[in-house]
């Protein structure tokens, strides 16, 4: 059995949860077994996870799980994995998954590969699975030989797919370890898709000259339903908020489309974005290193090009 932990921070499933269930179902098919999803805390519509391929949804609606603690989460996930004889445990490679996957692996005496980005293959009783390493500069294939295997799935690596229909939710309980972390508050930006989950990212760098010029970047992002990002010097100079900083020191993302405006494409910047599926670079310097990592490029003045591109997308959207 493949057990998928489907995260539901503040009661809501995330795109990454649906991706994890889709992935879990495909791993289950590969192993000729079933896929069971687990939710912790208060959730709405947990049965919907069936649509992504879970044949059963287990829910522990204990309110103590409504705030996150890696110990109580890992303990519950491991107990459910044991009592259901899970061969594989799938988590999302998110802030929650990164805190929990290592703990679950230790508890289950399991080999862990975190941030996997494609389906495994079997090699006897072992599983082989790939992930991106060296900040996107290489790919490593891991072999997991333990009886139980733990995988955490990189965001945007698989698309949520319709692989079943809604199922009934079974409420269960476990004697899990008590959390010792006291969450005081959670602050999130409302109304925008967080960068790690965004499918389209519009990012700008020092070529923008100053924060007062960001209106055109925001407008382009709004047209595309995209999330905005920036290079490190832009965040360091407080032209943009720190959470927008992508790259080696900021956050690593892998959207379907990354539009880089007035960013030179330094190696540390690329380390955070080079897993994007398609990269568009707008830069006045034809020698800018970013063009080497780009799929499409426009050489010219961003102050003319960005509004024009915005208009072109608007025309396209209007049909």
């Amino acid at each position, binding site marked *: 059995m493949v057990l998928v932990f489907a995260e539901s921070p503040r009661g809501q499933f995330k795109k990454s949860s649906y991706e994890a269930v889709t992935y879990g179902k495909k791993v289950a098919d590969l192993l000729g077994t079933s896929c069971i999803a687990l939710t912790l805390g208060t959730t709405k519509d947990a049965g919907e996870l069936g649509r992504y391929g879970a044949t059963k949804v287990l829910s522990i609606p204990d309110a103590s799980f409504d705030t996150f603690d890696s110990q109580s989460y890992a303990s519950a996930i491991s107990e459910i994995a044991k009592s259901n004889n899970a061969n594989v445990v799938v988590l999302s490679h998110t802030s929650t998954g990164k805190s929990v996957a*290592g703990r679950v692996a230790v508890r289950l005496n399991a080999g862990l590969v975190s*941030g996997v980005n494609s389906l495994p293959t079997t090699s006897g009783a072992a599983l082989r699975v790939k992930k991106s390493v060296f*900040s996107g*500069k290489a*790919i490593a294939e891991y072999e997991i030989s333990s009886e139980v295997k733990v995988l955490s799935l990189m965001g945007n690596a698989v698309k949520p797919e319709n692989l079943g229909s809604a199922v009934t939710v079974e409420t269960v309980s476990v004697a899990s370890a008590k959390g010792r972390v006291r969450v005081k508050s959670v602050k999130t930006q409302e109304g925008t898709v967080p960068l790690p989950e965004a499918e389209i990212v519009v990012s700008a760098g020092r070529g923008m000259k100053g924060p007062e010029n960001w209106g055109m970047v925001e407008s382009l992002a709004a047209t595309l339903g995209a999330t905005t990002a920036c290079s490190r010097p832009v965040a360091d100079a407080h032209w943009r908020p*720190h959470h927008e900083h992508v790259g080696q020191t900021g956050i690593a993302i892998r959207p379907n489309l990354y539009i880089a405006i007035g960013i030179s494409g330094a190696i540390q910047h690329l380390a955070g974005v080079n897993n994007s599926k398609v990269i568009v670079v707008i830069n006045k310097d034809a020698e800018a290193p970013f063009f080497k990592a780009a799929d499409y490029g426009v050489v010219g003045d961003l102050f003319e090009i960005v509004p024009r591109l915005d208009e072109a997308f608007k025309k396209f959207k209007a049909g």
Partner: protein
Amino acid sequence: MKLLVCISQTPDTTSKISFNANGTEFNAAGVQFIMNPYDEWYALVRACELREALGGTVVALNVGPAANETTIRKALAIGADEAVRIDCEPNGAGFVAKQIAEYARAENFDIIFFGKETIDHNGSEVGAMVAEHLDLPYVSYASKLDLNGSTATLERDIEGGVEVLEVDLPFVLSAAKGMAEQRIPNMRGIMTARSKPLKEVPAVAFEDSAKAVQFSLPPAKAGVKLIQPDQMDELVRLLHEEAKII
């Protein structure tokens, strides 16, 4: 206050990454190795700041071969009081976590620091594993840490925001941007680092059941397709019809 900072050694950010002909081993020839940036800039510096404010000891720990001693001395130059090297090839996150946990178990550290991930394996695994081995709370991607007696207040980066939380000592954390500012070791630091204690500890036996067996380079990009600045409708068309992403 007894603080442990676990430091990893990784290839320099700008290194060209290559492997042997059959892709089974990293090619270290000509590669410069550094302290993993997040371990250095955020974890180690914050630990030193806390020691400076509250007293105590900062121990820097590396799981690795003798060749890593340059990196370990740098941690001492930045401000760690003493260092420990667990002598072995650091083969896999599970293996490294086991080594650290076995060492730390008897030492009763108040806080065990990690960086948010290493820039070579990008795993973010070891901190959580050590916390589990030692049955301690774990706060990952911490971007702020303050202490008030035996209680810590932290901010933790989550998708699209931060979580503010409290936890009592002892606990384990992984440090992200915001926790501290990079420190360049000064001359005095470099001089005193030479005489600070660096203890070598033997590794314990442990078989990691997840192993990297095959490396490859990502497929080369087809090359950039340039579009004239006055042809933005054409760019949109390509993104729609050729790249199929809008």
